[in-house]
C-alpha cells in the first residue's frame, strides 16, 4: 500500500513540489520557534540564585566627566600629571560618597540590609571575561559586590564563605564562583582555597596581587534572568575604601526591605539619597519590576517569530487545500473506478489522507535532516540535545496534525463521489 501511495505522489511531482517546499519551510521555522520556546521553558525551571522578593535596586548616575566612558575631552593644554591627580581625587571622593550612600540607606527603618554590585540582574550591561587554566580557556560572566551582597540578595552559599573583613590586606584577589564554574575549573576537587591563575597573552608574569583565589561557591547567579541559559559566573570583591584606579566601582545599590514595605518607601529612599548627593541621579526599581520589563524583551522576538510561523502554517493549509481539491476534480473518474471495483468510502478517505501523509513525510524527513545538523555541529552550544529533541517532536506533531486535518475535508468530498456519476464522465 505504501509503495502504491509513493508511486502516486511521485507521479504528480509538479503540483506537489510547491506544497513540499512550503511544508519544509514551515517545519524549519516551527522547529526554530519551538526550540527557543522549549529552551526558555527548560531554563525557567532552573534556580535563579538570588531572591526577587523584597529586593530593590537603585542605579546611580554621577554625571561626571571621566566617568565610565573614556570619551570625554579634558581641557587641552593642561599639565598631564595634574590631570591624573585630579582624576584620582575625583575618584576617591566619588567612592567615599558611594560608601556614605550605603550608610544612608541602612539608616532607613525599612531597610534590612544594603549592598552594592556592579552588574544588576535583568539589566542591559554585561561583563564577561575568561581565564586560561590547565591549557583550556574558560569563559564566565563576571560581577563585583560588597561584603553585604550575599545577605542582601539572598545568595545561596554552598561552600566556603562570602567576602568579609578577613580578606582585607590579602595578597591575592578573593573571588566567589558558582557551582558550574567550580566544577569546570576544579573537577572533582575542593575549589575552596584554590588559585585561579590569570594568564593574559602578551603580558609578563602576573603580579601576585592579581591572582584570584576562591573563597566561596554559590549555587548560581543568573544575571540575565530565568530565560537565559545557565553559565559560569564569578564575583570579585568590591570595597569603596579601595582607592586603586583599576578596582571595581559598583554603581548599583541593592536593598533588602523588611516585610510589609510598600511602594511609598521608594520616595523616602530616593529623597534621602538625593539629600546626600544632590548632583547625582537615582533610579529605584523593585527587582520584580526589572524582571517584568526584562522578560518582555526576551519574549518580543519570540512573538515575532511565532507570527511568521503561524503565517507559514496558514500558507501550508491554503496550498494543501488547493492542490487536494485539484486532485479530486481531476481524479473523479479514478475514484469512481476504484469505488466500482469495491473500494469503500473509508478506503478512499484513507488513500487520500495516506498520500498527504507520504508527501508530508518526505518533506519533514528533509527538514529533520537539516534541523539535526544544529545539535550535531553544536552550533548553539547553550542548547542541550534534549531541547532539540523535544522541539523536533513537537513540530512533527504539529505539521502532521495540520496536513492531515487539511486532507480530511477534501477526502470526505472525494469519498462522496458516486461511482456511476464519476464513470458517466466518459
Amino acid at each position, binding site marked *: 500500500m505504501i509503495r502504491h501511495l509513493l508511486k502516486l505522489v511521485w507521479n504528480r511531482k509538479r503540483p506537489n513540489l*510547491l506544497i513540499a517546499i512550503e511544508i519544509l519551510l514551515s517545519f524549519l521555522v516551527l522547529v526554530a520557534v519551538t526550540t527557543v520556546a522549549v529552551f526558555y521553558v527548560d531554563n525557567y525551571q532552573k534556580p535563579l540564585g538570588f531572591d526577587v522578593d523584597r529586593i530593590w535596586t537603585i542605579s546611580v548616575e554621577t554625571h*561626571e*566627566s571621566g566617568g565610565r*566612558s573614556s570619551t570625554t*575631552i579634558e581641557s587641552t593644554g593642561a599639565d598631564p600629571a595634574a590631570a591624573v591627580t585630579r582624576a584620582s581625587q575625583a575618584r576617591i571622593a566619588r567612592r567615599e560618597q558611594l560608601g556614605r550612600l550605603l550608610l544612608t540607606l541602612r539608616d532607613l527603618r525599612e531597610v534590612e540590609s544594603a549592598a552594592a554590585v556592579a552588574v544588576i540582574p535583568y539589566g542591559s550591561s554585561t561583563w564577561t571575561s575568561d581565564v586560561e587554566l590547565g591549557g583550556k580557556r574558560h569563559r564566565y560572566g563576571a560581577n563585583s559586590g560588597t561584603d553585604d551582597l550575599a545577605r542582601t540578595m539572598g545568595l545561596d552559599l554552598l561552600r566556603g564563605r562570602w567576602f568579609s573583613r578577613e580578606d582585607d590586606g590579602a595578597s591575592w584577589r578573593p573571588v566567589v564562583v558558582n557551582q558550574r564554574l567550580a566544577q569546570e575549573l576544579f573537577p572533582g576537587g575542593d575549589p575552596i582555597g584554590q588559585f585561579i591563575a590569570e594568564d593574559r597573552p602578551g603580558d609578563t608574569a602576573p603580579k601576585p596581587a592579581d591572582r584570584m583565589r576562591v573563597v566561596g561557591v554559590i549555587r548560581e547567579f543568573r544575571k540575565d534572568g530565568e530565560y537565559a541559559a545557565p553559565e559560569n559566573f564569578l564575583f570579585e570583591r568590591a570595597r569603596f575604601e579601595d582607592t586603586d584606579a583599576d578596582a571595581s566601582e559598583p554603581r548599583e545599590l541593592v536593598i533588602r526591605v523588611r516585610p510589609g514595605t510598600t511602594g511609598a518607601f521608594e520616595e523616602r529612599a530616593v529623597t534621602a539619597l538625593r539629600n546626600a548627593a*544632590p548632583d547625582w541621579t537615582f*533610579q529605584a526599581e523593585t527587582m520584580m519590576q526589572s524582571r517584568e520589563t526584562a522578560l518582555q524583551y526576551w519574549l518580543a522576538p519570540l512573538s515575532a517569530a511565532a507570527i511568521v510561523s503561524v503565517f507559514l502554517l*496558514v500558507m501550508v493549509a491554503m496550498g494543501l487545500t488547493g492542490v487536494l481539491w485539484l486532485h479530486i476534480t481531476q481524479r473523479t473518474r479514478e475514484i469512481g473506478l476504484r469505488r466500482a471495483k469495491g473500494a469503500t468510502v473509508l478506503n478512499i478517505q484513507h488513500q487520500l489522507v495516506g498520500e498527504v501523509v507520504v508527501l508530508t513525510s518526505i518533506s519533514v524527513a528533509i527538514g529533520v535532516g537539516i534541523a539535526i545538523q544544529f545539535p550535531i555541529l553544536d552550533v548553539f552550544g547553550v542548547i542541550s540535545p534534549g531541547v532539540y529533541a523535544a522541539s523536533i517532536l513537537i513540530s512533527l506533531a504539529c505539521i502532521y496534525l495540520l496536513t492531515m486535518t487539511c486532507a480530511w475535508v477534501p477526502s470526505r468530498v472525494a469519498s462522496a463521489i458516486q461511482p456511476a456519476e464519476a464513470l458517466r464522465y466518459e
Partner: protein
Amino acid sequence: MGYTMIRSYLKLAWKVLWRRKFFTVISLFGICFTLVVLMVAAAVLDHIFAPIAPEVRQDRTLGVYRARMIGDHRSQTSLPGYLLLDKYARNLPGVERFAIFSMPQTVYSYQGGQRIKSLIKRTNAEYWRVLDFDFLEGGPFGDQDVTNGTMVAVINVTTRDRFFGGGPGVGRTFEADGQRFRVIGVVPDVPILRLVASGDIYAPVTTAKTDAYKRQLMGGFGGLLLARSPSDFPAIQAELESRIRAAELPDKNWHRLYAPAETFFDSVAGNLFGGRDEERSHPERLWALILIAMLLFSLLPTVNLVNLNMSRIMERASEIGVRKAFGASSRTLVNQFIVENLVLTLIGGAAGFVLSAFVLRALNASSLIPYAHFTINGRVFLYGLGLAVFFGLLSGVYPAWRMSRFHPVQALKGAGR
C-alpha cells in the same frame, strides 16, 4: 459588459463560493491573514519613518544620529555627544537652523506618595524652530532661557494630566529628579518611536544637573540640520565629514571618528548594516531587506491562491465547456472568472482591513509602546488596497489564461487539456 451581465456574474460567483464553503473559507483566511500581517507591518514602518507632525520639514532636514570611534582593538558606537555637535556641527554651509536634543531619559518624580515616571529631553532653543509643535498652551523656551539655564519646561498632555489633574499647566511647577521646573508650554503627545520628537518633559539643555555633558564627545545627544533645500545636502555632508575627520580624539588609543549627517532612515540602516570601518550607511540594504520580506510574504500567498483558483476552474470545466458551446468567447469567460476572483479578494481584503484596524488599536492600547498611534492613514490604506488588487489580479491571471485555452470538447468531458 452590461449591468445584468455583472449581476449574473456576481450571483454565480456567490453561489460557487458558497457551494464550496471549506475552500472559500481557506482562501479568504489566507488573503485576510496575509493582508493583516503586511498592513500592520506597513503601518508600523510608516509610523516610524514617515513625516508626521511635528517633524514636518523632514524633506530638508538632515540629522546627526550616530557616532563611531575606532581604536586599536576596540570600537565604540553610540549617539553623538554634546561636544561633538557643538564644536563640529555648528554653522555648516547651507544650514538654516541647527538643533541639538538629548535622547529621552527616564526621570522619576514623587508626588503624593506616588511615583511618576517621565522621559525628559533637553534641547537648545533652535529645536523648536526646526520642529513644528502644535502648542496647546503657552510656547517654547527661547535663546535667553537656554543661555541662563532657566528652570522652565514644556510638557506633553499626558504629563500635564499626571501632575496637575485636569487643569491647565502653564505657570505651575513640578519636580523631576529633584529639580523643580515651571511649565511654560504644553504640546500633544508624540509617539515614543519617533525618537527625535518624543518626550514627556522638554527642558533647556543647560538645566542638566552637572555640565559634564559639555565635555562629552560621545553619548546621549542628536543633532538636526535644517537645510535651505535638499540640494544643499551633499555640501553639508561633505563639510561635516571633513571637520570630523580632523577632530581631536580623547586619547591616543583612538584613531578615527565618524559622525555622518544623514536622514533617519539612513541612520537606522547604518546601525543595522554598518561594518567596522564603514563610514556611509547603506540605506539600499535596508530597503532591500524590507522589500524582500514584503515580497516573500506576498508571493507565497499569491502562489497558493493561484493553485486554489486553478482548482476552482478545473472543477467547473464542464460548465465552461457548455458556455463555450453556447457562444461565450474566451474573453467573456475570463471576465467572469476575474469578477469572481475580485469578489473573493475584496471580501478577504475588507476583512483584512477591519482586522488590521483592530490589531493596531490593540497595539496602541497596550503599554508596549507608549503613545503609539498606529493608524491606517491614507498611505497605508492605499498600500493595502494595492496589495489586495495585486493578489486579486496576479492570482487570477494564470488560471484565467489556462481557462481561456480550454478545448470545449475536453472541457465538457471534465478535463481541461
